């Protein structure tokens, strides 16, 4: 896969024409291998890879946009079935995408291994002897000068050496080659690509990521039961979870109100937390773009919102539910949607689904909306359902959604009874004497992601290798140059210069001119001595 490899390099395409006679099993294998590692195959595979990635941007992906996939399924179940069978919702882990890049990497390895041994050989052997007829080269110069041939030969050697050539002095000439670094860097680039793939393949099994919604005053400990959701790699074990805990003290957003657009622009999100581990407790501030790196894990601030503290009382005044409930933001002014489930303590199971408006304003239609993301006029509305919450069947339920199938709506919607509406600190009665609900207090929550990703180090090192290899290989040129001295026995000498590009080298002619110039400079300085 050397793009600018030396012109005499065999890229395998010639070999096919010669290998026509009946191939045995080994021959056929070699044929396939040669095909696979040829530059043309690598090129086709590269273009296929680009093509195959396109659907990953057109169709929502389970990895990056799971909600989009759910939405797609809801909107068009039939097309969903077809596309899902084609693994289009998992493009980048699909069989077809994987086979393209795996073939590409096999092709790559099959190409760079022989090139590495070829290059090692070139690095340890001297530049080839001077060809007998330099005038046949496209880039050729000839000069006449005075001096003893032996002296001029030394000048030639010194000139080439000072210009970075590796030099071999022969009877009447000097041959040199430079720019070995080009191939070294090129190989480094390609090995670094393999490094990325290996880093991903080996590291992914050991990584984990977990999510947790944390309300002000709550503490999260880094153990499995403390996560809301958790995605471990294949080789993950509980024991790799570093023991520490994080408490959210306060979350402080800063907004700037833009008078012209009427929009609130977020300026800063800061979560003040207390980190406790074996060495004690300390305060940390978590911000977007400023994750907390602790004991090989990173903690990221990825979301925030309001968590109204909701208290539900039984008719006799007993508290049956009292806790902050995270409401998920639906727009930039933090109109938020939340769900409360009361399985025990009341006459029947209750489910409530409702909106929280930090700065509530009534629209002409009577509906509420939030006009600012700060709690200037906090209002909570709840639609109440009674019946079977389905929590007793042992099936895991999403705490953020309410399955209303086996429930009967008792407020809001078409029940003829208004939704419950509460300002901060207000308490309203539930219908049918079920009890009452109170919007007790307003807190904020943050959602944090905790990641441990051992692929980062090998991938980062490989990325450095990619950049270094790329820059060096594209801007170093590999050249051979020869200088031959032919004395005429009368103190005059003919000096011939020739240069040969090994790979793409548009500046070769200019380089040769510089070499001629450098030669005469070295020659003059030696004369002066």
């Amino acid at each position, binding site marked *: 896969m050397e793009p600018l490899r030396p012109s005499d390099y065999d890229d395998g395409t010639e070999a096919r024409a010669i290998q026509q006679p009946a191939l045995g099993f080994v021959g056929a294998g070699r044929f396939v291998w040669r095909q696979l590692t040829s530059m043309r195959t690598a090129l086709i595979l590269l273009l296929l890879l680009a093509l195959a*990635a396109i659907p990953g941007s057109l169709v929502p992906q389970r990895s990056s946009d799971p909600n989009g996939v759910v939405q797609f399924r809801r909107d068009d179940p039939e097309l969903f079935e077809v596309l899902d069978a084609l693994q289009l919702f998992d493009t980048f882990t699909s069989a077809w995408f994987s086979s393209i890049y795996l073939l590409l990497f096999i092709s790559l390895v099959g190409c760079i291994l022989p090139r590495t041994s070829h290059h090692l050989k070139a690095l340890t052997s001297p530049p080839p002897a001077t060809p007998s007829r330099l005038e046949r080269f496209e880039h050729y110069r000839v000069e006449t000068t005075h001096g003893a041939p032996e002296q001029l030969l030394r000048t030639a050697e010194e000139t080439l050496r000072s210009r970075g050539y590796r030099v071999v002095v022969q009877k009447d000439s000097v041959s040199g080659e430079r720019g070995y670094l080009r191939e070294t860097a090129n190989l480094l680039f390609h090995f670094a690509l393999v490094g990325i793939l290996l880093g991903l393949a080996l590291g992914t099994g050991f990584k984990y990521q977990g999510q947790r919604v944390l309300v002000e005053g709550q503490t999260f400990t880094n153990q499995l039961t403390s996560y809301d959701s958790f995605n471990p790699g294949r080789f993950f074990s509980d024991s790799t979870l570093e023991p520490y805990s994080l408490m959210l003290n306060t979350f402080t957003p800063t907004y700037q109100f833009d008078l012209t657009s009427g929009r609130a622009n977020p300026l800063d999100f800061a979560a003040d937390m207390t980190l406790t581990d074996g060495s004690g407790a300390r305060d940390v501030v978590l911000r977007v773009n400023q994750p907390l790196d602790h004991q090989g894990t990173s903690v990221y601030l990825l979301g925030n919102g309001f968590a109204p503290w909701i208290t539900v009382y039984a008719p006799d005044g007993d508290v049956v539910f009292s806790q902050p409930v995270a409401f998920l933001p639906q727009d930039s002014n933090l109109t938020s949607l939340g769900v409360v489930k009361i399985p025990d303590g009341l006459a029947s199971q209750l489910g409530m689904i409702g909106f929280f408006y930090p700065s509530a304003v009534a629209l002409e239609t009577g509906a509420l909306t939030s006009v600012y993301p700060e709690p200037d006029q906090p209002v909570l509305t709840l639609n109440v359902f009674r019946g079977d919450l389905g929590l007793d069947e042992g099936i895991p339920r999403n705490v953020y959604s309410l399955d209303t199938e086996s429930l009967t709506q008792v407020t809001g919607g078409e029940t003829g009874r208004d939704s419950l509406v509460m300002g901060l600190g207000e308490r309203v009665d539930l219908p049918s004497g079920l009890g009452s609900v109170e919007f007790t207090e307003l807190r904020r929550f943050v959602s944090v992601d905790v990641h441990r990703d051992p692929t980062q180090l090998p991938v980062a090192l490989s990325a450095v290798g990619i950049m270094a290899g790329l820059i060096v290989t594209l801007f170093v040129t590999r050249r051979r140059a020869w200088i031959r001295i032919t004395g005429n026995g009368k103190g005059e000498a003919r000096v011939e210069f020739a240069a040969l590009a090994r790979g793409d080298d548009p500046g070769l002619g200019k380089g040769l001119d510089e070499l001629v110039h450098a030669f005469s400079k070295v020659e003059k300085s030696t004369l002066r001595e």
Partner: protein
Amino acid sequence: MMDFAYLSLVGVYSAMAVYTLAFVAFTWDLARRYSATPALVPAGAANPATDAESSQPWGPFQRIGVTLLVLAWVIHLLAAIGRGIAGNRVPWANMFEFGLTSTLLIVAVFLGTLLWKDLGYLGAYITGFVLLALGVVTVNFYVDVTPLPPALQSAWLVIHVFVASLGTAFFALGAALSALQLARARFEARDMAKARIMNTLPSSSIMESLAYRLNVVGFVFWSFTLIAGAIWAERAWGRYWGWDVKEVWTFIIWVLFAGYIHARATRGWRGSRAAWLAIIGFGAVLFNYTVVNIAFTGLHSYSGL
């Protein structure tokens, strides 16, 4: 207090006016080249006037064009700086600003290459493209200056986005040369023997080599953009690579140009086919900037539209 956002917009429109004049001059220069070409040089034969790498003096209209272009660029630069002062940050934090800075860099790279090689025949294309792009971003993508949201408050905004626009600038020039290379190659194959203007261009192999060198620089910048973006993504979103739509297209573009570099070393692909890959690659860059920003939903939704 001075309204820098307003002044910046005035600057953008002024720059567009001067770009228009430069465009006219460069077009005139092309026409002059056409009429100054006396006879048909046999196709395929070397054209001594242009094949000898650019020792020809500049024509008067090219000189006027370049002078106007420098003037327009300075106004454009002031407009970008004004926008930066207005926002108190780098002027490439949303789609309009990215367009403003990218076009500025395209012209800067073009002016820079003029010091290196006589690419005057690209002047009409560059001014035309920049004029069109500036018009589109100002009319369609303009947004008021807003403070940076927390997700963009990072030093990587300065590095990642700037290098992306620098890469875009090199790809734009490379694609132009590749397109002319294709036209000239057809001319050399006698398909367009009557298009005398083609005679005023360097040979297709010279343009191929120039296009390659520009695209390769673009490729280095693009690789860096990709890596810097991954580092930033790890800090901001908790993962360095997640196949977000913008990431997908950045990857596609990288692979296309990697393909282009390999095509140049593959028998049967060097020359015209490789040139097509470079043009498709730049097409993908434009797609990534326009359609992916506007029509696709992803994490890179900073167009502000």
